[in-house]
């Protein structure tokens, strides 16, 4: 993630910063974990 600074900059320009990325990835990970625990 950290190395993709150039790309992340384009997102940040439109209000989606690292915090939003972390939240999104975290939510998807939680869902995957729920399925794996099944």
């Amino acid at each position, binding site marked *: *993630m950290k*190395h*993709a600074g150039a*790309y992340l900059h*384009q*997102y*940040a*320009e*439109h*209000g*989606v910063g690292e915090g*939003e*990325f972390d*939240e*999104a*990835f975290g*939510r*998807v*990970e*939680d*869902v*995957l974990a*729920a*399925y*794996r625990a*099944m």
Partner: protein
Amino acid sequence: MPGSVVTVQLGQCGNQVGCELFDTLAREAAASSPSVRDEIHEVRARVVSLSLSREKMPTSLLARGRRALLLRVHPPRSRNSPLALVLSLSSTARTQAFFRSGDGAARPSSSSSSSSSPTARAVLIDMEPKVIASSLKRARRSSHRWRYDANSALAFQSGSGNNWARGYNTYGGLVRDEALELVRREAERCDHLGGFLLTQSLAGGTGAGLGAFVAEAIRDEHRGATILNHCVWPYESGEVIVQCYNTLLTLSTLLNVSDGVCVVQNEQLHRACVGALKIKRPTFDDMNGVAATQLAGVLLPSVARGVTPAGGAGCGRKLMLLHDVSRGACSDPTMRLLSLRSVPMMPQTSVDFTTFAWPGLIKRARQMLLTGTTLEEGLDWGVEPGGDGGGRVVTRCLAAMAFLRGKGAEDADVGALSDPRLFPTWTPSPLSVSHSGARFCGYDASLTLLSNCQSACPPIGRMLARAYQV
């Protein structure tokens, strides 16, 4: 009464899949019923008796007969014979969940020759007008007699490129009010709103960023409504890293607002075209056709039955879209990933030379579910439920809905799909079954499986790993 569904087509991919879906629904409505001839006679009889003794008709018949009469009195163009009009009325009755009748609304723009065609209950949204225009055109040219309402389309004169954030935040704010107004208008035209179906791609520009925004806005505005998302997963080979980000951002948003997120992989649609349909170089239209078939297998009218043909709770009741789908497959709010499978799938030229038998179809669908594939070809028959798979994938399933269509659908034995080893022990009634006697895609017997299972997980896991690696 089964509810009506408003479809919201988002971005290029979403518009193409949506268009293909409506075309499939219209085609099946016109072709599927074995008793269509009887219904023509029935409707004709009503029209005749209406003109003879209007007072003596029960109100409901009168209302239906009056519509037929209107069609007969005011045929839009002479190329439409009375028979075609009656036929279209009877098939409209069968697809009213997805189409509204085109004869009712007196809009100035509805004076064209196609104004009496069933009109898709759809809202079309894209940043580029050409995508919307080609959907409208495709519908107008369809041989299955349906159309879009051009007033339900929203297009702007710029693409959102591959920047999810621009689509979501910048364009989202611009589009919000107008988009919600169109959705509200379409929803108000339903006697009973059964929910929203949103079609979009997960990775691309408009469908992803703007699509995620619109999904959220619809949820805000229609708190109690059922929302089902149909999402196309990008090709994994050669994809740019931005697609990874876009996909995960869209998925995360949708998992938060949707009742069910149906993930359909481009890769598998492509392989289904090549393998099952024998199309050497599939176009996006071919692939969208497969996606639309799978979806229509769920959405066409069906009636609930028990896992054992003898019965169970709610038997014989018409399936309520989309409420019953969400209840049957997405009862756990933290687990809303859905997969679709349809068997059989073959070129139309092969249908006449094929024998269809329920046990084989059900066995194949079960093995597809177990091995986590949506493809019939190259099935791994060595995988057993409950086993460790010897290093191979054994998919477990939270819930599944089986839609049986065709001859004998009412009492076909689906025991193989209700094997308790397929499901965790804590799910109360993991399998729901519904049926329709109408043939689907010309097949004497066919099965569509909507499952809430682990098979959507491996691609998501790979996508996450890539996003973190970069």
